[in-house]
């Protein structure tokens, strides 16, 4: 690093950057002390009688009491969704459905700051990210699928199609509002009604979303929100829904697939990942460094498609690592509501424990750890951006999903070796390729076993772009035309219909 700083053509880096804090105000968010379950268009007390506290992970401060929905509550929500489906939503004109979705998109845009602050408060993610990524993309998803609602026959020509009925949807805590949008928007566009379970630790934006539904005048029962832990999710999987859409860990995904075996219920799974981010020696190095940082430290690494395995061509290993480490020293870790913050709080105590356990395993197995000097706040859940070098493919930190700001660096010599190593995992969600050679990008893209390939970029998302995994990263796609398919029933398809 010192060597870089002494080069004459570069502006010397000051010893330490000093930032004035720039906190976003919490004032726009009005929290209830205690929330109900959103069933049939209103908040109701849980029949389970149980509540739990949801926290601000950056301070461990309790924010509100949240219902722990039991099987009876879930059954009520599913029954309500069923009634709303048969009482009119399935028969509503597609153009009307579209207009409700457009309304939801617009209201999300109008209330974007409120949602951004709440999302950072409850999830620990930097406000810059919730403001610039989560909330605008959530609104964009509703806007995108709104337009499909009355055009489905063009999406799947020559196919008889109808809505499935009630969709049960279970979402994770890493992008609470965005995952809600990924789930609800295509489901409603296709004419289904919904019972959605937000993640245990991040229910607040889903509960605020109920107020958006009120403002949009969506008919009661079309969207129902049941909060709770894994037991609530399990109850939803076992309930009388017609479809389950799950985003979360591969372990839970397999359990759901087993539970639904033989029921004929439609299932989509968006599960874990251990993506390779592959850096060739002819890449634009500074851009690649930014891509690596965005790939693994974006959202504290709480990203299923995070570029958690860095594969570096050996000829540029040293300069790349030097630049990367230097870049890490400029990352701001701290208050999620500070607009300077790059890396926020770890989402929960439980997740922090898991990260610490895997990082300890990495050191134990012989990998070399690097963390930039940074002061972590005393309260709350924090983990410094971490790079492991000297990592063997067999190490747990190269095999298991850490879901935290932890990068494992491996090297390769030839493109074949890069492909071999990249594919050496049961996962197959995403991959990154960095090279200035176009033919090599396409050659690599063809061989990487992953549902999303980012070439000379990383962690890009768009409602028009299908997202989902190969292998044990799940099946089904979310986003784009392909994201409608999991919410439609084609069972009446036959050779006659499709003109065969």
């Amino acid at each position, binding site marked *: 690093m010192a060597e870089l700083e002494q080069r004459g053509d570069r502006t010397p880096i000051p010893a330490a950057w000093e930032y004035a804090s720039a906190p976003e105000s919490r004032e726009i968010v009005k929290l209830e002390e205690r929330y109900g379950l959103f069933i049939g268009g209103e908040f109701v007390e849980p029949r389970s009688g149980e509540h739990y506290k949801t926290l601000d992970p950056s301070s461990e401060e309790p924010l509100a009491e949240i219902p722990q929905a039991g099987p009876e509550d879930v059954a009520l929500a599913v029954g309500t969704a069923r009634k709303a489906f048969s009482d009119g939503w399935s028969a509503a004109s597609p153009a009307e459905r579209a207009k409700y979705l457009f309304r939801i998109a617009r209201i999300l845009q109008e209330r974007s700051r409120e949602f951004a602050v709440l999302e950072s408060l409850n999830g620990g993610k930097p406000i810059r990210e919730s403001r610039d990524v989560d909330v605008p993309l959530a609104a964009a998803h509703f806007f995108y699928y709104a337009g499909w609602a009355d055009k489905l026959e063009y999406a799947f020509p020559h196919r008889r199609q109808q809505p499935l009925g009630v969709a049960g949807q279970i979402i994770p805590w890493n992008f609470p509002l965005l995952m809600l949008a990924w789930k609800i928007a295509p489901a409603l566009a296709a004419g289904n009604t919904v019972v959605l379970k937000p993640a245990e630790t991040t229910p607040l934006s889903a509960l605020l979303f109920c107020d958006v539904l009120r403002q949009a005048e969506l008919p009661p029962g079309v969207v129902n929100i049941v909060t709770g832990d894994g037991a609530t999710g399990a109850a939803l999987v076992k309930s009388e829904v017609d479809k389950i859409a799950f985003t979360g860990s591969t372990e839970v995904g397999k359990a759901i697939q087993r539970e639904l075996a033989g029921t004929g219920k439609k299932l989509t799974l968006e599960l874990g990942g251990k993506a390779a981010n592959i850096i060739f020696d002819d890449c634009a190095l500074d851009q690649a460094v930014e891509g690596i940082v965005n790939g693994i430290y974006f959202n504290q690494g709480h990203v299923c498609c995070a570029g958690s395995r860095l594969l570096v061509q050996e000829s540029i290993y040293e300069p790349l690592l030097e630049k990367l480490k230097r870049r890490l020293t400029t990352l701001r870790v701290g208050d999620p509501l500070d607009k300077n913050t790059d890396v926020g709080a770890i989402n929960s105590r439980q997740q922090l424990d898991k990260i610490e356990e895997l990082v300890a395993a990495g050191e134990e197995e012989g990998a070399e750890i690097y963390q930039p000097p940074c002061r972590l706040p005393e309260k709350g859940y924090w983990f410094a951006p971490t790079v492991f070098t000297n990592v063997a493919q067999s190490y747990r930190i190269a095999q298991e999903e850490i879901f935290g700001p932890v990068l494992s660096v491996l090297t390769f010599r030839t493109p074949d070796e890069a492909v071999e190593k990249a594919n050496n995992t049961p996962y197959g969600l995403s991959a990154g390729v960095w090279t200035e050679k176009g033919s090599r990008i396409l050659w690599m893209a063809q061989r990487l076993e992953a549902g999303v390939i980012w070439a000379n970029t990383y962690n890009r998302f768009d409602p028009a772009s*299908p997202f989902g995994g190969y292998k044990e990263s799940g099946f089904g796609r979310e986003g784009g035309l392909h994201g409608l398919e999991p919410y439609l029933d084609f069972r009446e398809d036959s050779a006659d219909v499709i003109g065969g």
Partner: protein
Amino acid sequence: MAERAGRLPVKKTYKLYIGGAFPRSESGRTYEAEGQNVARASRKDVRDAVRAARAAQPKWAGMTAYNRGQVLYRVAEMLEARTGEFAELIGDEAEVHAAVDRFVWYAGWADKLAQVLGSANPVAGPYFNFTVPEPTGVVGVLVPEEPPLLGLVSRLAPVLVGGNGAVVVASESRPLAAIELAEVLATSDVPGGIANLLTGFRSELAPVLAAHMDVNALDVTGADGDVPELERLAADNVKRIVRGSADAQSPWEIAGFLELKTVWHPMGV
């Protein structure tokens, strides 16, 4: 020895089709079906077939779609040439004609799938973004008991056209058409190992295929009472479960055996 009017015919030994070869079951077992001794495949045969399919699949997937289409058309040609033989075997010439036509129909899909199932995606940013279908990998296929030839062809052709390798468990009660079809495949430029055909007891073979960790998808169209258990086993490596139609042709039958890959690249100068 009794006098005979004509010559004594040479009878065929019905064997398995694994990796482009015709081995007996490694278990040495047979069972009687349609008046013949038919190989009764074992767990080990299933594993051998999966290994053969995995080894052969990248080359098949790497062929141009045009080339793959021509190979499948060649299958139809070979099948057509043996119409009489198959008609005698299954007792239904119309079914043979339908099977030939089905191969022709699917052959033509090879170089059209990407246009019908893929997309260019108009993302809100300076990126070129497209989605293409790719083969899932190795597919386990439980074919329907009936019709013996068309049921098999209707399930196998959509698996092959997308670039997958297949491990097929043939009709248990009427397995001869599968072995005859293996002879057609073996003479049609389908690379050895891409289509593996096993005869034997469904209840013995299906769970092994469903639980195999190197099988990516399972077609349960021909399974009966054991579907829940097979699907449970399949969850161990998140297999794609395909519930198709025993007698239909559709690009959506192919789509069940495909993955969708989306590629992003920035646009700029």
